[in-house]
């Protein structure tokens, strides 16, 4: 499958996929993303809910069993991991090229 159709990822999506390398529910993801981005990316609830719906339908994340019925948990899928890796490599090449001039 050609994964390049998923790229480039928005910052929000990139951080969410990163955060879901371990299972978590909506608010947990919001907190983890803020931590991972050192406070630069703060996702609000309305945006978060929509992003989860979107990532689920594209099969980049999947439900993860949990006990709290009101706080459903999710985790990244293998496809999600592959997309994340491709994006990281793409960003890495950009950085390597940029370092020559900046």
């Amino acid at each position, binding site marked *: 499958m050609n994964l390049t159709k998923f790229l480039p990822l*928005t910052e*929000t999506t990139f951080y969410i996929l990163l955060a879901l390398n371990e299972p978590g*529910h*909506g*608010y947990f993801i*919001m907190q983890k993303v803020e931590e991972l981005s050192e406070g630069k990316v*703060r*996702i*609000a*609830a*309305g*945006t*978060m*809910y*929509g*992003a989860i719906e979107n990532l689920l339908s594209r099969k980049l994340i999947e439900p993860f069993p949990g006990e709290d*019925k*009101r*706080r*459903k948990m999710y985790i990244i899928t293998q496809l999600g991991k592959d997309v994340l890796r491709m994006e990281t490599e793409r960003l890495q090449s950009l950085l390597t090229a940029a370092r020559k001039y900046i």
Partner: protein
Amino acid sequence: MTKFHIMGDNFEKEEKWINSWIKKGYRLKSASSFALGYDFTPYEYSGEELENGIGTVRMDFRHFSKKADFEEYKAMFEDSGWKFISKSLEDLCFFEKTSRDASDDIFSDDASKASRYKRLGMYYLTILLAYIPCFIVFPPFNIDVILHPGQCFYTPGLWEMTGLKFLEAFLSELPFAAARAYSGLLFFLCFLFLAAQTAHAFYVYKKSTSGSQNRI
């Protein structure tokens, strides 16, 4: 204390109107089913609360087919400092900021904020499509009948009657004749109104997201 306000089709303007009352010392208790009446209660926010935006109301438009999904949605808002106030029109949700640390809005990027309009457009479109088969039952309208509604009175010899007898016969048939003459037209006007709302919602959505599409 109920205040009436016609929502129109702009979420941002509606939020602004509601929040202007918050500043005047009111709190939104609930919104009525047809988003026309808002129930406010008098409430004294402290200066510090107002500074931090406590009491700010924001709206989202989203359809939930399962109750469990709606519960998950509300929990996400609760956890991040936004209390669910009430629902209106089945899909319109109102939230109130309760925590100082919460964000100023329930959307953190333009794309997700604009997507409300897309969902609103889909809502109107669904109703609009349901109207189409109904045109088989209510054929749009007949100009001749609208201009000369008299022919919709079927009482034999009605127009030859006089005085009280005429009035009695006329009034008793009036609602039926009016329905025969104008219901098709009314139905068609509703259809046009819905079509306009659908187009407007999608238009606003396209306009709001075209900016982000210009990413170079």
